[in-house]
């Protein structure tokens, strides 16, 4: 057990260092594109038809502190972060947290639902495909998975919207019905969200399924021919129990070790779908803040996503530690 805490502690420490490094990279990368928030504000006004005096840019820069050197802006941002202050959103002139916070709940709920949905469907299909390799069922499952992967998610989203409009006479975009939009969260509102959110889950979920199906199928096929399976079978173990207890468990390992990447991938992959379906997740907010070069909102969201990746990796490590005895042995040797 001692080794476990050492293992986790070491992981936590490296997490913090990684986060710090990520924050530098994030801030520098956001600053890379030409222009800044002031130019984007002026561009926005121009694109809406306003005639703007370009000289305005200088007073804007001064007001938002954009004329200060990058490192100074970075230090004040990170300084604030360490005190739990995410900074001010330039676009909305309110603390970033207030902008982000209402979106975190729906984002996590939807990402979680997509994760569970796609795994619940894809893992059994993958197992089936491996056990019945080259059967009709295998082909159907494979074709289904690849169609889901090959069709861009936003196209599926548009198709879903059009089907909703032309066949059911409703515009299904948005997470909540209009009457709940400006209301506080309640059970009714929650169920309304669930009753509309499944379309989003379906659209985003089908996109990721093919990958899981293929990994599951390939891994399981590898395992099925291994000697331990033959041994167990020879010893008269029932087929169902055998498959689930040994080869499936091993075949799941790669999935477990990449859970860390699933969290940010779910947050990132849905940007366009959320945009099209008008779903209030962090995705469109990130896209807009990058577009308007609102450094603090974009930086905070990216940092949160990196934080999730790192936490996810930690979870994978811990899960692996639990699932795979070989990891435990390796860690024990290390210390």
């Amino acid at each position: 057990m001692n080794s476990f805490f050492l293992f986790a502690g070491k992981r936590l420490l490296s997490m913090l260092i990684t986060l710090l490094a990520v924050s530098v990279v994030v801030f520098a990368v956001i600053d890379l594109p030409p222009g800044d928030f002031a130019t984007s504000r002026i561009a926005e006004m121009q694109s809406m038809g306003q005639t703007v005096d370009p000289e305005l840019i200088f007073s804007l820069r001064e007001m938002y502190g954009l004329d200060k050197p990058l490192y100074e802006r970075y230090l004040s941002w990170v300084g604030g972060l360490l005190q739990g202050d995410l900074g001010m959103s330039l676009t909305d002139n309110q603390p970033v947290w207030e902008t982000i916070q209402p979106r975190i709940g729906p984002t996590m709920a939807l990402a979680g639902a997509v994760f569970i949905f796609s795994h619940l469907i894809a893992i059994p299909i993958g197992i089936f495909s491996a056990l019945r390799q080259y059967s009709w069922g295998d082909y159907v499952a494979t074709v289904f998975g690849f169609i889901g992967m090959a069709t861009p998610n936003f196209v599926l989203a548009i198709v879903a919207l059009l089907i909703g409009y032309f066949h059911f006479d409703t515009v299904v975009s948005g997470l909540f019905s209009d009457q709940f939009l400006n209301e506080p969260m309640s059970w009714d509102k929650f169920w309304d969200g669930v009753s509309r959110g499944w379309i989003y889950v379906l659209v985003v979920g089908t996109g990721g399924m093919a990958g899981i199906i293929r990994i599951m199928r390939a891994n399981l096929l590898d395992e099925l021919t291994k000697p331990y399976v033959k041994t167990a079978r020879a010893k008269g173990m029932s087929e169902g129990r055998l498959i689930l207890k040994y080869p499936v468990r091993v075949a799941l390992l790669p999935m477990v070790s990449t859970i860390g990447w699933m969290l940010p991938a779910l947050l990132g992959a849905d940007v366009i779908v959320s945009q099209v379906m008008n779903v209030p997740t962090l995705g469109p907010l990130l896209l807009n803040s990058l577009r308007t070069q609102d450094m603090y909102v974009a930086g905070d969201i990216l940092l949160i996503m990196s934080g999730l990746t790192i936490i996810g990796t930690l979870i994978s490590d811990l899960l692996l530690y639990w699932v795979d005895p070989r990891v435990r042995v390796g860690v024990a040797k290390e210390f």
Partner: protein
Amino acid sequence: MKKNVVALSIAMCLATPALAAEYSEAPQLTKLVEAGQLPEVSDRLPQEPLVVTPFDSVGKYGGTLNLLGRAPDNVHRIRIIAYDNLFNFNEKYNEVVPNLATGFTANEENTVFTLSLRKGVKWSDGHPFTADDIVFYINEVIGDPDHAGNRPLFISSPDAAKATAVDAHTVKIELKEPNGLFIRQLATIDGASFATYPKHYCSQFYPQYNKNLDAEAEAAGFSTWRQYSMTKCRSAYFIEHYTNVDRPVLTAWKVKTPPGPNTPIAEFERNPFYWQVDTEGNQLPYLDSVRWRFSEDSEEMVLRAAAGETDFQARHIGGPSHRPMLIANEEKGGYTYHFRPTTLMNSMVLGLNQTTSDKVKAELFAQKDFRVALSHGIDREDISETVYSGVVEPYQAAPIESSAFYDEEMASQYTDYDVETANKLLDGLGLEKRDSAGYRLMKDGRRLRIEALTTTADLGGVSDSLELVKNQWKEIGVFLDIRVVETNYLTSLRITNDFELIPMPGDGGVGIIDEARSYLPYSPESTWGLGYYNWAQDPNHEYAVEPPAHVKRQIELFEKVRNTADQAEQQRLMKEIMAIAKEQFYVIGTVSSLEEGVVINNKIRNVPHDMPQSYTFPTPGPMRLGQLWKEQ
């Protein structure tokens, strides 16, 4: 010219005010009055309320105006909610009419304007609107050299105007430079900020009125009082003044739920102190509230519009690509798809930047023959057929027929597709050498390549037409390189005058004096000669380029337009400017512009049908939206 003071009275299109006792109000307000939460309607209305004559009928109170929009689009909200300037345009866009101001006098030099304000108008919190509010805005808000919000373009520097209150309802504005267009400019969207600064509220965000401001700003999480102040009392361009629920307004509706990243629906509610009544003495507006449903995506917005979720809208959904969907669903959505005459003169104009930093190209672009050749190289019928189903005509960058400046010859010059003439003209300019791909070479041996900058946000019509022009110009050996760039990058290039061509829709079909960007270096939008514009503002400007004689003459003439208030004289001078524009042919036009499509819910009443579509105007603001009502 002997008169000392030219007294100009604007047509007083006001009916005799109804007697105070006859005023009536919305039932929801009557309830509040009875509960003692509001003063009587006669006490809320000014002595002489503005009387609006409804287009169709006197309305019934109640209902909500439902609209679709994009959260950051303040322009749409200005058009619907916030067009109550000191002076307004009428709905036909041919006259400036009194609004919050009832009249004015000006001195002969057009430097001193004395405005009389409507007596007894109150802000939405019941506080009187007086000359002090205007003085505060001019002297302390935009008069502050470090002011970081927008200034109106006609008061572009802090010392350009000074104001004094003569009495509570009379304000004297002294301008540094003579400006005969001042009153007209007050009626444009650029003049909207003048009536949006309630001194009694906004002064608390200025350090000269509030000693504790720095501490308060810090407590609210801002690093400077300016940021704090700009959040609480912004001017109209910058996330409009109605993001702050507490800030009093003079408009028909007042924000209740401000737009924001987490507000899918913004709500505006009736201003109980609104100062307009209909011909029967009913206080406007009729509609209780305005609701905006925000979309992140324009396709989704069109789908919602087709489903009947918007009551009265052209913004974002009026483009040609959305038409079939919206027309097909008229019955299902319970609306009618109408057309508004456009004030655009062209669907796309190509203004080659004659002042671009590439000297060889700048010299080439400045040659009239070069521009004429390129114009002959465009097959306009092809553009009309391919992009606009053939419903638009070949058209040069010139005023449209409904304008006083319409000139048939200007509108049609160099519009015929004539590759031979084009090639001859280009050969004549010393561009006869060609490279292996058939493109012409410039005198320094480089391929003749024109870089057109567009963004993904560009309207479908412009980018589609541009692709056609690219193929057509290939025939005459000119390489049009269409580059889709990021909007911020485009802005940076614009500011440093480092671009060759920014194709844009052709503003300035009617209302030429308000929007002449294609005819002379008129504004920063005159991208064909941005260096000239900078020069006209300040010859020592970092990106100024000294203009040739004919441009200088135009700048001089336009100075004169500003220096006179005589409308006939302004027209005469402007005609002279337009004659030079016609002769010099600065900007290449393509085809005329489509009318703007408007979705109007079948239950909405009092919508005028011949209102021109224009930004400077700004449609539909001048119709006075307080008179809109909804059949229940």
